[in-house]
């Protein structure tokens, strides 16, 4: 079970299986989906636990031939960088299937699409072949489109669906051109990431070439992560998406772009990276400050969460821009932490929407009395969003800020404002508007999550946040050798011109 292909293909095979079941077997669809993502999660936990941080190189590696003529192979594995991401993705996928209880119509199609999304993103995080990496990520595009379109909510659903799809494909295609250019310019006949890394370490490309390819990758991947000013698809899309799609997308899929930057762009194009980092540091302030301020003004809970999630991406970008061990490590911790946090927040807001029929914060108030469990978890999630110690976001953001201080002190000052003041203001205002105050009569019949089974997904995600918050070394220790290798390559080149 501790086998990466098993983790990736469990959801994908289950999706095909559901497609083949007769249309009337409504009970089975959900059961199969739960079983598949559950097995995936168990596999991911075993990989995480069995991961040996002392060893170097890839673990749980699997390599099969695929398209020999182009040097494309099926190559998956984990190292310190992605072992946490795979676990996070599997956890969020399981939680997303758990909270899909609210879906009553066309369940067959629904579970197929959610499983395809989950399998795609697990595959993308585990890939060590440029083509496979892209291929798996794009598997999620069509499912996201149909999920938001059919089960989405709100008057702007169509607009949001198309906006999200077009932005994501634009980003993906720009990144694809960057990846192909990288392959062509490297002059190698292999898409294998390890092979390319070794080759380019010995024969780096000309700095000018590196620079334009890095630009393509930066903006291609950047659009996928909602880098300011290409972020407008994200809050709209998440507000319109059904709960599971928002969880998977905001939580997991969006991290693909960041992962691509750290895994591919930084180590393969070290000189290119340096020429773009000043710009990236400025743009990430756009995420942190601008989107933070926008979040401040939102009246709809999902719009607030969407903007806050875009703002949090700014920290990951800042960590990358700092180009040192602390910063990049922090960026990866932020990715894992934010994945869990975004999934948890959207799961809870989906619960509220399902019970209340609205997410306008003006119409809520005093809900904590009626919903002690959900309210308590959500208050904790919002504290985690402000960066309270004890939750995984704190070590991530702290590491990013420490790292960034060395490279961009001025930017860091502003980012601190965004992290400590703006985030705290909008999160605490939301807590007050939704949970505190006198309870309204219209909500007096609300029922909290009734049993353990319903509470499970929220509890799991919260547990993840707390475990990585209290023991961040679980994430940072395995990451150390990989990140320092990447950083060394970047700075090694500047020292020896």
């Amino acid at each position, binding site marked *: 079970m501790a086998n990466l292909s098993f983790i990736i293909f469990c959801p994908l095979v289950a999706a095909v299986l559901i497609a083949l079941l007769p249309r009337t077997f409504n009970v089975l669809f959900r059961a199969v989906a739960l079983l598949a993502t559950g097995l995936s999660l168990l596999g991911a936990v075993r990989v995480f636990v069995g991961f040996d941080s002392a060893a170097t190189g890839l673990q749980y590696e699997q390599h099969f031939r695929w398209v020999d003529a182009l040097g494309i192979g099926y190559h998956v594995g984990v190292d310190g960088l992605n072992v946490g991401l795979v676990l996070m993705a599997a956890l969020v996928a399981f939680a997303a299937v758990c909270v899909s209880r609210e879906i009553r119509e066309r369940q067959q*199609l629904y579970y197929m699409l959610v499983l395809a999304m989950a399998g795609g993103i697990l595959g993308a995080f585990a890939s060590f072949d440029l083509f496979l990496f892209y*291929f798996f990520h*794009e598997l999620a595009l*069509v499912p996201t489109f149909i999920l938001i379109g059919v089960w989405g909510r709100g008057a702007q659903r169509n607009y949001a669906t*198309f906006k999200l799809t077009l932005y994501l494909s*634009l980003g993906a*295609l720009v990144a694809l051109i960057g990846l192909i250019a990288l392959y062509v310019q490297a002059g190698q006949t292999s898409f294998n990431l390890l092979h390319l890394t070794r080759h380019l370490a010995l024969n780096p490309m000309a700095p000018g070439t590196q620079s334009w390819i890095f630009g393509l990758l930066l903006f291609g991947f950047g659009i996928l992560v909602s880098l300011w000013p290409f972020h407008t698809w994200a809050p709209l899309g998440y507000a319109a998406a059904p709960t599971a799609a928002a969880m998977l997308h905001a939580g997991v899929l969006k991290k693909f772009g960041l992962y691509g930057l750290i895994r591919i762009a930084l180590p393969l194009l070290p000189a290119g990276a340096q020429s773009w980092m000043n710009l990236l540091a400025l743009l990430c302030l756009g995420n942190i400050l601008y989107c933070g301020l926008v979040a401040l003004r939102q009246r709809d809970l999902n719009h607030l969460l969407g903007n806050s999630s875009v703002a949090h991406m700014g920290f990951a970008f800042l960590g990358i821009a700092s180009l040192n061990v602390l910063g990049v490590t922090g960026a990866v911790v932020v990715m894992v932490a934010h994945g869990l946090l975004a999934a948890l927040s959207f799961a809870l807001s989906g619960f509220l929407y399902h019970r209340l029929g609205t997410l306008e914060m003006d119409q809520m108030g005093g809900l904590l009395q009626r919903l002690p469990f959900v309210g308590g978890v959500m208050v904790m999630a919002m504290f985690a969003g402000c960066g309270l110690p004890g939750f995984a976001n704190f070590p991530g953001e702290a590491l990013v800020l420490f790292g960034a201080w060395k490279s961009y002190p001025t930017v860091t000052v502003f980012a601190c404002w965004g992290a400590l003041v703006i985030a705290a203001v909008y999160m605490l205002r939301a807590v007050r508007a939704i949970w505190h105050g006198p309870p309204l009569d219209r909500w007096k019949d609300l029922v909290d999550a009734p049993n353990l089974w319903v509470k499970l997904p929220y509890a799991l995600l919260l547990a993840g946040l707390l475990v990585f918050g209290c023991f961040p070394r679980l994430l940072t220790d395995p990451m150390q050798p990989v990140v320092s290798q990447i950083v060394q390559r970047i700075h090694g080149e500047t020292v020896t011109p």
Partner: protein
Amino acid sequence: MTHFAAIGLELAVAATGLAVLLLDLWVRPEQRRWLTWTALLAVGGIFVASFALTVPEPARMFGGLYVLDELALFFKRFFLLAALLVLVVGQEFADRFSAGHAEYSALTLFALTGMMFAASANDFVLLFVALELVTITFYVLTSFQRRRVVSLEAGVKYLILGALSTGFLVYGLALIFGAAGTMNFEQLAASPPAVLESRLLTVGLLLVLVGLAFKIAAVPFQFWAPDVYEGAPLPTTAFLAVGSKAAGIVLLLRVWFVAAPALTSSWARPLLVVTALTLLYGVLCAIPQRSLKRLMAYSSIANAGFLLLGFCSGSAAGVAAVLFYLGGYLFAVLAIFLVATLAWRGTDSDAIADLAGLAQRSPLLAGVLTLGLVSLAGVPPLAGFFGKFLLLKSVLASATLHPGLYAVAVVALLAAVISLYYYFGVVRVVYWGQPAAAPQAPILLAWPARAALGLCVFGLLWLGCFPANVLNLAQLAAQSLPWR
């Protein structure tokens, strides 16, 4: 190999067509549908038999008029497969013809013969004859619904514009023969420099290229496509989009890379402009379309642009990408037209809006249609993605030599994103569009239609997930062109 063995596949197809025509005289009307099934089986058998044929060395027959090499064989298989699926679409569409079901199958087979000869053309004479065989049968196939005014209008438009393009072609041939004294591609390429640099030859070749540009619907010779596609019956439109375009492509490949490589390589820049314009025209005009057939017409123009990308890169990898892309295009387009035929049974509609509610009426059809559209949009794990990937890769690989290709790559990227918008617009209607009328009955499918749908889905997924086999065939075929 004797001459007649070499054209065995074509002879078999033509004989089947004649047999269908003749048998129609004796078969009772209620049993005529069996004629189509027979034709279908025959084409399927010829398709399978074509894999028994191997050509270790290119065979030149009939005084160099006809060549049988891997490229020709690839395209013959392609055309056979396309015709096989078109016959199924035609059979499902037959209730909308007032008469002449057997003639429709026979004409499809004659057009197929023309296409298969085109795949082997090594001489401007065979190029012309094969193309005319295809075009003239298409005049009839286009206006086959003779009680529908739009169908007749489409036929007349196609006739007039087709005749115009034939005029260009013939004039070009005359000039080429006047300049070089030969019609053979290889002899022309080996002509002395004085001939190759003569203005007469340049003009002649340009006119031939114009005639071929008509066939593949490349800008600025694309204007016939939307009206003809819209008016023609669905199976004819499908065959036009796949077969006729691919016939244009294979002839263009031979003329461009075999007949005058020296001359055409100096036209790289105009080709870039044509490619970029074709891409942009196709995708931009497709956005406001409400008829699926017109949408597919503009999409076919845009796809001509994508195919021309492979010509732009001017490498064996580019040609292999073109061939692979065509394979994916075949399955996607035929899947879409087959679903459209089944979904619109009993109506005279071709409006995208009338596909609303298809996901409830038949999840299978909705799924197949989505796969076809998504493949055309170029999203993994489907064939269209791998085709676009190969094309972009070949363009970027050649771009180190010709920087203009970077600009074309950017245009292709924009075109791919825009195309996503209109393809996904159809998916939107299928899954969450509001049906205008009350919910319609579920759609029942006969087994041949199911088998054809299954074949399309299999093709799309197989080319997308396990592209190695077909890619090897395409690369082998691309190698049979002369590369310096």
